[in-house]
């Protein structure tokens, strides 16, 4: 195998599994250390720089970071990254003086942002400090987009949402709320230098089965119904409610229904439990509120008497996979009837661009989606950019934020240089953490605590009032203990071949047998010949150049390295060192050579 090129920042970035998996590449271990140190405001700002909505995401994020957390490979459960983020947001001091401001004099360029959700707000957050005039359009009365209309208040209190949305709106954004944009042409005619489309995926899928039309007033489309509850147009629901669908929207619908008068709320899902799209923790929370999840039931018809809904009939199926892994729902012949006063359909959502004229030069492709560049987010009409769910279909908030940052870079490059293809490199620092004998500037001791559960309010209290937040968040002492579970994967094991005397000290001490000194070979052979074969192909091997004494190579399997620093502790020559790797995605307007204060604080 060729020696690992650690000068490529992506090598060490990949070792930080959580950060690598985060679409916005939030430096997770960095802010977890700050939380452990009680520096909540600093932890909040590390987050805010990267993901713009720490308080919101600390409650609602889809957490792509947690399933990949190294802790989950070493023991049972990942670090509660998401809930730690909330601790930073809940305990921070005043931050307004730390936020960037719009300059007094603008740069003369005007950008329209269509939709006031996370993608557009991120674009605004990145472009406002650069002097752009930003016009934000949304048909809702307040900013936040789907974060406001789709996420129930018992998961995301409005104060939290308002605070973080206002941080951005207060940068001098021109707000055009309760303004439905019905024509992109008319926006373009207003002479904007660029337009960003962050309108999400606003159309809930419907279910075209017998009885649907006759029972119109008792059947709701999930995302519309949630919005109507959010804006207080709907305040109650029937006693018996069926929610169709297995995603997070279905979970939000059923739990909201429980709070609006639904005593007997059931979730009915076509597929099997294991294949449900909802996050496991959201399913858990629904089940905890006495909501049964009924799987393998395919809706057949709405049963009604003269337009009055009586219930629904379902076909029970077996899920069968063919040789190619393709799923088939095979009816068992059994049919089931569930009584219901109202039904909520939450089986998916789609994009809809009826307001974009098709003769503007924006190319539309498969499924009537605009053709958008995956890196630059530019459409075929060069001044129009897309991001968030509007770009490639429904994802989540953190993905929308990541899109927003990249689109902002593109808009800034497009308006300054006329081209968007040369992207700025990430900001990277790599600094030794050694402070003395047995002393490292990070807490290298590995906690063996199990994951701490987040406390909830009592079910009685939660179900009585839709506005009571269910999760209470960690208190600072539990937060500290949970933060200590983080393995500090960003503190990298850095190997210097020329210093190694091959004493095997690191091999002998490594608790998880990651380090090997062996004859070089090709990667598959090398993976098998290690002391503990490296069979997790997603994790890289760190390979040195040939060693001075024996011409062997050092091979480290990154998979279950605890970053405990014992290899460096045991190394007599300093060939191993623990170095903190800070990786930040460069934002619009900031050339990579300019580092933020947070990056130099080590």
């Amino acid at each position, binding site marked *: 195998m060729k020696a690992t090129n650690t000068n490529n920042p992506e090598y060490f970035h990949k070792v930080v599994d959580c950060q690598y998996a985060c679409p916005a590449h939030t430096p997770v271990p960095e802010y977890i250390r700050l939380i452990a140190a009680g520096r909540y405001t600093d932890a909040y700002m590390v987050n805010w720089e990267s993901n713009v909505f720490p308080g919101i995401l600390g409650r609602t994020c889809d957490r792509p970071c947690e399933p990949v957390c190294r802790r989950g490979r*070493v023991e049972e459960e990942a670090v509660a990254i998401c809930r730690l983020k909330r601790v930073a947001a809940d305990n921070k001091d005043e931050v307004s003086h730390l936020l960037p401001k719009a300059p007094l004099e603008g740069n003369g360029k005007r950008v329209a942002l269509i939709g006031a959700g996370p993608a557009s707000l991120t674009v605004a957050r990145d472009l406002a400090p650069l002097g752009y005039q930003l016009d934000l359009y949304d048909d809702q009365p307040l900013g936040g987009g789907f974060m406001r209309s789709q996420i129930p208040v018992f998961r995301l209190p409005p104060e939290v949402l308002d605070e973080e949305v206002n941080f951005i709106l207060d940068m001098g954004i021109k707000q055009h709320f309760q303004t439905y944009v019905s024509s992109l042409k008319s926006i373009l005619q207003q002479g904007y230098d660029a337009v960003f489309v962050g309108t999400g995926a606003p159309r809930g899928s419907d279910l075209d089965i017998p009885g649907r039309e006759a029972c119109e007033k008792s059947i709701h489309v999930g995302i519309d119904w949630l919005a109507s509850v959010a804006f207080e147009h709907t305040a109650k629901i029937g006693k018996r409610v069926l929610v169709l669908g297995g995603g997070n929207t279905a979970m939000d619908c059923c739990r909201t229904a429980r709070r609006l008068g639904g005593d007997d709320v059931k979730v009915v899902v076509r597929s099997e439990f294991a294949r449900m799209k909802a996050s496991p923790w959201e399913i858990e929370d629904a089940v905890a509120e006495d909501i049964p999840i009924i799987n393998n039931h395919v809706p057949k018809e709405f049963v009604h008497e003269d337009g009055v809904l009586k219930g629904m009939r379902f076909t029970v199926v077996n899920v069968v996979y063919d040789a190619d892994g393709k799923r088939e729902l095979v009816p068992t012949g059994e049919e089931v009837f569930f009584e219901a006063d109202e039904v909520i359909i939450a089986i998916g959502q789609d994009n809809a661009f009826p307001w974009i004229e098709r003769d503007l030069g924006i190319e539309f492709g498969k499924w009537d989606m605009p053709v958008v560049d995956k890196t630059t987010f530019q459409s075929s009409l060069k001044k129009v950019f897309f991001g968030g769910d509007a770009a490639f279909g429904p994802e989540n908030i953190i993905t929308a934020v990541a899109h927003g940052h990249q689109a902002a870079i593109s808009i800034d490059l497009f308006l300054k240089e006329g081209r968007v293809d040369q992207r700025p490199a990430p900001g990277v620092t790599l600094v030794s953490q050694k402070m003395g004998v*047995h002393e490292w500037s990070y807490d*290298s001791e*590995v906690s063996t605590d199990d994951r701490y559960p987040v406390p909830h309010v009592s079910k009685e209290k939660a179900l009585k009032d839709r506005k009571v937040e269910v999760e209470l968040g960690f208190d600072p002492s539990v937060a500290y203990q949970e933060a200590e579970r983080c393995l500090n994967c960003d503190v990298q094991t850095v190997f210097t071949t020329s210093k190694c005397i*091959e*004493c095997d000290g690191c091999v*002998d001490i490594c608790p998880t047998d990651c380090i090997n000194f062996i004859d070089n070979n090709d990667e598959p052979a090398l993976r098998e010949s290690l002391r*503990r074969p490296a069979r997790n192909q997603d994790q890289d091997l760190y390979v040195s150049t040939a060693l001075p*004494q024996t011409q062997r190579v050092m091979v480290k399997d990154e998979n279950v390295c605890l970053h405990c620093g014992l290899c460096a*502790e045991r190394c007599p020559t300093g060939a191993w060192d623990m170095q903190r790797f800070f990786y930040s995605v460069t934002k619009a307007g900031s050339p990579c050579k300019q580092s933020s204060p947070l990056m130099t604080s080590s």
Partner: protein
Amino acid sequence: MTYVKPSFRHPEAPINDLGRTRQDYEGGLSTLCAGCGHDSISAAIIDACFELNIEPHKVAKLSGIGCSSKTPAYFLSGSHSFNSVHGRMPSVATGANLANRDLIYIGISGDGDTASIGLGQFAHVVRRNLNMTYIVENNGCYGLTKGQDSATMDTGSPNKKGDINMYSPIDLARLAIEIGATFVGRSFSGDKQQLIPLIKAAISHRGFALLDVVSPCVTFNNHSESTKSYEYVRGANSGMPVDFVPMRQEITATYDSGATCEVCMHDGSVVRLYKQDNDYDIEDRQSALEATSHYAREGKILTGLLYIQRDSEELHDVLGTARRPLNSMTEQQLCPGSRFLDSINAGLR
């Protein structure tokens, strides 16, 4: 202070026939200097015992004084252990072994503890053929007292300050062969591929087994002029690769070059040695002495299994002691009463 070994281990770490993991054979965290060869030997002992499926409580670790003699604290924390007086580990081992012949005895000593203060005790435990594994962690200096030359330091090899050693070294392996040892091996702490099978073979050997293991002292004797440094030993090492094949296991070769010889141990396991030349007979004392001195003259260090005498009589055989350990006998058996004492006394009149 962050110097704590985490308790997490590799999730796919193997389990041996006893259902134990390697972790069950570990000890406390070493307090030796970073990079000390002794820690590699401790790790090799852990691997050997884990792979031999030895119950930790069936092992007794014995040591004298010195850096080497501290190491029993760093492996097999579930075993019996006795950290004895400087150079007197052989006496304690002899007493323990006579009292309980069922335990596996692993003695750990250094070049000071064995070749200087303990040379007298060492010579006698060798000639008595006590059933034990005696490992000398040999670094050519007194590491615990600031690195003075030891009795195994080669003539002409300078210490860290630059003072040249004027005296001739004691070659413990050759000495042991000379005075009747029945198993003598030499190895290098930086070559676990050879060291682990050698330790396994030594443990399996019935009788006294000496392993003289060159183990560089990183702090005092790893400089460029030293003949006990990692770099020098790597260059001078004429390693005879060793395989240890436990009983009831198919014999497959790990190495493929050189002349091989296979030695069947008394328990049915097989030691396979890949010799440097065909004339060398490791079951012939004279041949072993000639080979080691030949390599020494060439400035090389011959490592591997140097000499073995199978089917020797160990101390219990010579003394005709009871077959069971004393702690498994009743008071009646251990103290048969004055009638027996009288008859013994009568036999002496």
